[in-house]
């Protein structure tokens, strides 16, 4: 069983919501990545989304773009990202790693070469922001072949007919973008997200993660009441950039731990 499926099966058995932090590879430094990933796992991350830096991150807001720019200043490449995953895998055989990025660095490596190298490094899922299902049949097929889950986005504006199309291609989980706009924007509407999640679940049997707009314990709890996974990106990156780089991993871990505690408290209450 793929590590993503195994993780969700286990969480479901215990009635818990997955906590999924996003960090950018190479932010604040490439050398800090092992301690960063370790800190996130110790803080209670169930899955880690690992960013692949790109020069033109069109769907991201300023916070994640800055993270990308910090990584690119050190010339962090897709090959470096895979090396970080391989090193992580030597110490951690269970926590799924999902790469998140844009098509061009993958196409520059070559999709076939990327597929085998990602599998060998221990990557479990890949979300290519600018590969909607219409442009992803070949890519998705090559990912299936090596046992990597292609992860797709769903948006508030995605009509029901398209949800069915996405459901056909997606593996692992689907990622619902809970607001219009780019990563790191404000105004999360929980009620609207809940309605859309109900609609998504009519067509998608995979777990549904929700991201974009989750900034604190309260919004994480509100979303966790409806979603299988809570994805947090920009807010963690703010912790990373807000202070000395040497302590970035411990800041990110400490902040994520507060969210974990809030989710656990909610789940205990629900179970009681």
């Amino acid at each position, binding site marked *: 069983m793929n590590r993503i499926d195994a993780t969700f099966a286990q969480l479901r058995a215990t009635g818990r919501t997955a906590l999924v932090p996003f960090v950018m590879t190479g932010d604040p430094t490439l050398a800090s990545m092992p301690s960063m990933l370790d800190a996130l796992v110790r803080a209670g991350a169930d899955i880690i989304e690992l960013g692949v*830096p*790109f*020069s*033109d*991150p*069109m*769907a991201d*807001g*300023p916070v994640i*773009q800055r993270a990308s*720019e910090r990584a*690119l200043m050190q*010339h962090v*490449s*897709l*090959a470096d990202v895979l090396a970080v995953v391989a090193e992580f895998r030597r110490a951690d055989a269970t926590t799924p790693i999902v790469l998140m990025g*844009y*098509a*061009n*660095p*993958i*196409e*520059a*490596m070559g999709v076939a070469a990327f597929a085998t190298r990602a599998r060998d490094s221990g990557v479990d899922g890949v979300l290519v*922001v*600018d*590969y*909607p299902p*219409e*442009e992803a049949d070949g890519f998705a097929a090559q990912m299936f072949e090596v046992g990597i889950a292609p992860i*797709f*986005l*769903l*948006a508030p*504006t*995605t*009509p029901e007919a*398209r949800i069915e199309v*996405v459901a056909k291609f997606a593996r692992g989980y689907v990622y619902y*973008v809970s607001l*219009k*706009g*780019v990563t790191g*924007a404000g105004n999360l509407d929980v009620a609207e997200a809940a309605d859309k999640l109900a609609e998504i679940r009519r067509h998608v049997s995979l777990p549904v993660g929700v991201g974009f707009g989750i900034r604190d314990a309260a919004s994480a709890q509100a979303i966790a009441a409806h979603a299988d996974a809570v994805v947090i990106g920009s807010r963690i990156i703010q912790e990373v950039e807000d202070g000395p780089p040497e302590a970035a991993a411990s800041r990110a871990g400490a902040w994520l731990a507060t969210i974990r505690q809030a989710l656990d408290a909610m789940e205990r209450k629900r179970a009681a």
Partner: protein
Amino acid sequence: MRMAELPYNLPDERGHFGPYGGVFVAETLICALDELREHYARFRDDPDFRAEFERELKHYVGRPSPVYHAQRWSRELGGAQIWLKREDLNHTGAHKINNVIGQALLARRLGKPRVIAETGAGQHGAATATIAARFGMECVVYMGSEDIKRQAQNVFRMKLLGTRVVAVESGSKTLKDALNEAMRDWVTNVESTFYIIGTVAGPHPYPMMVRDFQRVIGDECVVQMPEYAGRQPDAVIACVGGGSNAMGIFYPYIEHGDVRLIGVEAGGDGVATGRHSASLTAGRPGVLHGNRTYLLQDADGQIVETHSVSAGLDYPGVGPEHAWLKDTGRAEYVVIDDDEALAAFHDCCRIEGIIPALESAHALAYAKKLAPTLGSDRILLVNLSGRGDKDMNTVAERSGLHFYCRPECNPESGQR
């Protein structure tokens, strides 16, 4: 079989020109693009829409633009006859306005009160600001902070026209970053906002739609050339950044199999130096800004910074239809560097009394190279896509002059 003999009906319904084009965007934009595609398909052949578009082009832009025989220059070069398609005479000074009117009319029919645009040199931004004023729409233009410094005059123009110009500080602070930022605005405000893209790039349907609105350039030439020059040209030459003026003049000629189509890319300091914008000549296919096309990128797939003396050609990608025309061999793509473009700029000023845009000067420079190699009975049609008023500062600096003098400086001291 030669491609020129086939009926040409690209893109396919998903926006592909062979392997190029497509819709490579995040899910958050798909719905807006689907809506745009449906509405454009509805209005594309709607007689009322066509009539209004043509009326605006005639009475507001001043079309048709003339074709003009550059007789003195042709004689001096001693070869083929050079004809110029005078897009520089359009209102706002370039071909950009054709497309902007088409998209603004569409925005109005979709009931969107707000338009946004990206701009590099400021020509597309100024054209968008102009139409927004004319139609009473709110307008926001995104422009890299580096370009704002280089193109102060166009920034002022846009402000005069009531547009808000937003400085983009991310990435390389130029056109590609302005495009990223405009996309972000569109994702966030998609219900109220129409995004007017300025070139034949971006996700489907933009490359097709912008080409359709710009094809008026070539359509006019197909009628004008036999009338004034006695026949169709042997070659059509146009500069290529994103490639909208070139697509506009090439498109109606694609099925004229014996007319050479020549796109001229910006060579900057020379392709060998790496400081250039010649995506088709020196790039590799990849995915950027919603489409697959030739891109200037490093080995890791990161988009690299580009350079050209003309801000309007300073872009690391190119429209996907050009990528297809290159691969099939239907069009040829060549490179002209900064110095060659500047020399042609001065020739055109001094010999023909026409101050061309630095973008268009690249096309002129290639005509200048090609003409002497051909007989005097040959005809080269060059798209003079814009006028050079906006480039006065750049040219003055390159020539060692200072166009602007602060009051405290001696006017003579600037004239070395």
